[in-house]
């Protein structure tokens, strides 16, 4: 069941299996994701959707007692690269494949510094460039107008929806090519969730987006395609 590999396939996953302790969480998953499209990952909880997301940015490597086999390739500047190749630097991968978690997780610092944080990690020193990129990212995340006068406030003071948009801005500031969203609206109320949905739709031109979602309505509104997970396998 090899993934149909079109010209516009951004991510190619081959024979991916994932184990946590002795449990096989993902079983030989083969799937591809199209560029500049929103793909929804659906299925019952515990089916391996969130785990699948973190195999795409290798974040699982920080989790003890986890193990993975298989191949993940992502097309960067026209070329497929095996992201598990030794020569592929991990920080670079994570800057190109951004991720937003289920619960907003702003770091304990100001709004501005939260968004500037990834730039700092990447070694950007030029203050002008930093402030320009922070504004751009906040703007793309529909947050600039709400926070432009309080950038130095602690991010914890923002509402839940604002915090989540802040996290999206923080993921966008490095200008990633892929964005992984793990149930981005499930901790928010409906109206805050709608704002995030609009925001996600506005991003898809430039980004390949994978979103885990439990809400059928949301999937209908957002996704170009959906992939169903069940007991660690992909069902077509």
């Amino acid at each position, binding site marked *: 069941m090899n993934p149909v590999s079109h010209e516009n396939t951004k991510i190619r996953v081959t024979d991916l299996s994932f184990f946590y302790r002795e449990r096989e969480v993902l079983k030989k998953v083969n799937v591809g994701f199209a560029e500049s499209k929103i793909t929804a990952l659906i299925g019952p909880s515990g089916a391996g959707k969130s785990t699948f997301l973190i195999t795409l940015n290798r*974040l699982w490597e920080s989790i003890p007692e986890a193990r993975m086999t298989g191949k993940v390739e992502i097309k960067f500047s026209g070329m497929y690269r095996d992201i598990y190749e030794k020569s592929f630097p991990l920080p*670079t991968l*994570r800057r190109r494949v*951004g991720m937003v978690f289920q*619960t907003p997780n702003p*770091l*304990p610092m100001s709004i501005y510094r939260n968004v500037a*944080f990834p730039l700092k*990690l990447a070694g950007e020193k030029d203050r002008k460039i930093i402030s320009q990129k922070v504004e751009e990212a906040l703007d793309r995340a529909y947050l600039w107008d709400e926070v432009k006068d309080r950038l130095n406030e602690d991010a914890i003071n923002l509402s839940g929806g604002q915090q989540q948009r802040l996290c999206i801005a923080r993921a966008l500031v490095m200008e990633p090519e892929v964005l992984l969203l793990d149930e981005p609206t499930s901790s928010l109320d409906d109206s805050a969730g709608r704002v995030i949905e609009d925001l996600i739709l506005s991003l898809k031109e430039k980004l390949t987006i994978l979103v885990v979602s439990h809400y059928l309505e949301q999937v209908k509104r957002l996704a170009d395609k959906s992939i169903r997970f069940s007991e660690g396998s992909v069902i077509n």
Partner: protein
Amino acid sequence: MLDRVVIAFSWISAVIIVGAVCAIFGHIILNGAGTIKLSLIFGDVAPLDALLLKRQVLNGLFPAVIGTLLLILISVMWAVPLGLGTGIYLAEYAGAISKKIFNLFFDILAGIPSIVIGLFGFALAIFLHKNVSNNIGPCLLISSMALAFLVLPYIIRTTQVALEELPREMRLTALALGATRLQNIRHVLLPRALSGITTGVILAIGRCAEDTAVILLTGVVAMAGIPHSLMGSYEALPFYIYYISSQYTSPEELLTGYGASLILLVLCIGLFSAAFLIQKRLTYITLYRA
């Protein structure tokens, strides 16, 4: 019936322990409070002269206080970088097996009686005396190193536990943003673990201030004045108290012993209260992990 016995037993135990605490504090405070004057510290020398080291204090606690402060400072200078590095390694880098082995080692280190660590310091001094230089003997340097070994487990454990207790989401946040392991430690994890680490350092300071057995074997003496170098002998408050308790020649001298006890007691209680204030959940289970 059983209910009443258990309740009575609990109350009696609590009353006994409260009584003991009151007796200890009361005895020291009642006898020591009257001695708390500037002359207890500085003797007949003007405080400013003593502080500027213009004149030597011969009949006050000044040299002992300075000795204890120097001891704390130098010991902590050894122990903090080493303990911090070790704690970070254990929490963030070590594999499961090496972590187990290291944990066992530091459990043993935490349990080694201070007199044995003192004996080690003493043996080290003899060794260095024989093999390196005749000028080395028991001294401030050796004492501070031995004390650093004594308090090292406190710093290692509090650092390690403070880091390990951080929630997994916080651990992953910066990594997902492209932080390297070291950047994650430096910018996110260490700042979050700071209060735990501070607690460990304060406890370590308290241990350095109160320990008598280590310094007894490694260079403390009754009369040395202000230490002139790391290679010299020195005085210290806890040793002074011990010395007075067995060698006092007059009631006045004994009273200075009470004065010294009160100062040391207040210092140590202050440090421990601060540690417990910073970290309310400072449990003994974290300090003595099974």
